[in-house]
């Protein structure tokens, strides 16, 4: 066993997970862990955590495709689980203090989470009663009253209104500018790929035939460079300033 590094151990991750778990069902990695442990009717302990590690990893693997945004949260817990699993497989393994704490931390973290899930149930029960109370301000709002200055005459009001109308005209006449259509490189790449998919080759001049602006010419050229880098197309030019021939590598 000497020279065996537990952190490099690979646990068999079944291609089809033993338990089918829906992504939406869980509030997060701790919720998933709790469920896995409870499914096996285990109490929260490091041993229980070691037991469900494989299922957890299988789930995370699945998550990678379905919901990559929440992956980071799951990976943190997965790393902790692997430390615990290593320790349970190799009891004599000397782990650093930090790793030892990890195992302890995860069980306490899980317990605390479980407690708050219990508290959430209390709130849920209240929520389901559908009882609510209202305050006065919410429904009636502030009363808006119009109390004009006693000196105001209809003439003054009319004059103010005309003044306001004149000012509004200025505001309405804001400088206008026509929005230019912007073509991004990725759009251009997709476009070129689509164009070239049908035929074996095309040329730069034909690509630029419909270009509406200098920017579009530049973007087209950048897109060609990117596609060349990705080896999707190859470029040929027989002499300086000659047309560039674009060939489909696919």
């Amino acid at each position: 066993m000497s020279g065996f590094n537990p952190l490099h151990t690979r646990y068999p991750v079944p291609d089809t997970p033993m338990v089918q778990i829906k992504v939406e069902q869980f509030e997060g990695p701790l919720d998933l862990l709790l469920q896995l442990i409870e499914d096996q009717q285990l109490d929260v302990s490091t041993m229980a955590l070691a037991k469900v590690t494989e299922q957890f990893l299988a789930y995370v693997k699945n998550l990678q495709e379905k919901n990559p945004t929440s992956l980071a949260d799951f990976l943190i817990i997965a790393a902790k689980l692997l430390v615990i699993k290593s320790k349970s497989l190799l009891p004599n393994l000397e782990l650093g203090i930090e790793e030892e704490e990890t195992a302890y931390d995860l069980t306490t973290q899980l317990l605390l989470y479980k407690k708050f899930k219990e508290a959430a149930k209390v709130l849920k029960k209240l929520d389901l009663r559908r009882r609510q109370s209202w305050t006065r301000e919410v429904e009636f709002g502030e009363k808006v009253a119009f109390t004009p200055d006693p000196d105001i005459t209809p003439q003054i009001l009319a004059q103010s209104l005309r003044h306001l109308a004149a000012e509004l005209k200025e505001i309405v006449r804001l400088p206008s500018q026509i929005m230019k259509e912007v073509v991004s490189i990725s759009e251009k790449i997709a476009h070129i790929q689509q164009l070239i998919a049908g035929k074996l080759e095309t040329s730069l001049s034909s690509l630029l035939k419909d270009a509406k602006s200098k920017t579009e010419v530049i973007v087209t050229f950048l897109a060609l460079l990117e596609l060349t880098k990705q080896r999707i197309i190859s470029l040929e030019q027989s002499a300086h300033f000659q047309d560039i021939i674009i060939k489909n590598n696919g």
Partner: protein
Amino acid sequence: MAESLNLRSKILAILFVASKPVAMKELLDALEVPDDELMAAIGELVAQNQTSGIILLAHNNKLQLASNPEHSSEVKKFLSLELRERLTDSALETLAIITYRQPVSKAEIENIRGVNSQYTLRHLLIRGLIEKVQSPSDKRMQLYKTTLEFMQSLGIKDMKELPDFEELTKNISLTPIAEEKPIET
């Protein structure tokens, strides 16, 4: 006794016209009574919440008069209102942490839940169920608290209705026996 009745009715009078949450400090300034007398009078008023059509919501040093949640359906009908949407599980989970740990930081909430809670917190803020306050120890840090609207939304008449956290969770604990044995594979 007459004096305490007097104080209670003064409190109600102010809260009635205020028609918005009133801070304890504002009441103290207006009524010019000692802190503990005011607290006692508020306690007495809250105790009457169970049987009154108008109740006194008192939470996090703020006070407001509201309708009794027991009359939800009648008030709703009168105002032609819809009840608010139900809370999602992640909202309830986050709300539970804030309820029992307040004032609490986002970091602590996320540590307990094990997930990024930015979105859920924003949702709760928009619905007015929680509010952000500055941490007294570190001005750069924001802490979250539940609001009077939280009480209204869940029909809580008195924060004492909520079970004690320790009491509620006392049966959730570690099982010590499982610690030592390695598992067979």
